[in-house]
């Protein structure tokens, strides 16, 4: 599958520079879009209320968000709508979040990944992934929304 994020090239104007013609309002609006609405986020957590609440938090920030309780469903959905960001729990049935992140990254190399976990076993999984060249940022559960949003902003600004 070819992964082509469709919304994150909106600053490309060629030689045209908006600020030079005084379009600050337009720039502000596009900055707003850059923060959320033009980006698709997949949230995956096997605890439904966590998945759906994270979805609400991210939607409130303007992200186009889908939540999943089964990582396999997220993987399938990524075939048709490649996410710009994956926010996923690590320890889950069917597939752990690190495996999911690696598979989605194979299909969508530009996809950012934010893991969250409250379980010690995660460090071993992360270490194993790191040895294979896969490095991910991880947040401790329960994730504070402010911490999550700041981490996401850092990911997109990087």
């Amino acid at each position, binding site marked *: 599958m070819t992964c082509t994020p*469709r*919304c994150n090239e*909106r600053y490309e104007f060629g030689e045209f520079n908006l600020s030079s013609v005084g379009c600050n309002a337009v720039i*502000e*609006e596009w900055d*707003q*879009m850059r*923060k*959320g*609405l*033009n980006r*698709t986020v997949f949230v995956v957590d*096997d*605890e*439904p*209320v*966590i*998945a*759906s*609440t994270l*979805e*609400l*938090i*991210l*939607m*409130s*920030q*303007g*992200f*186009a*968000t*889908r*939540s999943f*309780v089964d990582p396999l469903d997220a993987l399938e959905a990524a075939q048709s*709508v490649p996410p710009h960001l994956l926010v996923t729990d690590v320890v889950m049935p069917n597939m752990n979040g690190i495996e999911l992140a690696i598979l989605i990254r194979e299909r969508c190399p530009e996809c950012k990944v934010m893991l969250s976990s*409250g379980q010690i076993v995660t460090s071993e999984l992360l270490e194993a992934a790191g040895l294979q060249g896969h490095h991910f940022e991880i947040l401790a*559960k*329960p*994730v*504070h*929304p*402010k911490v999550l949003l700041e981490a996401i902003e850092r990911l997109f600004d990087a």
Partner: protein
Amino acid sequence: MRKNQRTTAQCQAVGDMPDSFVGTSAGLSTASKATGGVMSSDGPGALKFLHTTLSWVEQLERTPDPALDSESVAELKVILIARIAKLESVLLDKNELPT
């Protein structure tokens, strides 16, 4: 919702997103109805997360973010309170409610 958001039609033009993807108030309500049910698989960790999120929302109420409209913050708070009540009931039945 963030102010100055694109309309659904504009969003769809950008990313061909179904309506339910879009971060509008309607979208938020849809998402909460479609996926907001507390399930028996939700545990004490989920309850802690809901309380953490509620604290964050209450903080937003006290010191509003100019980019967020107060209606959406209020709506989010109502959803969170309902979910906390439901999950507490589920955990109580399972004798898993944290003391």
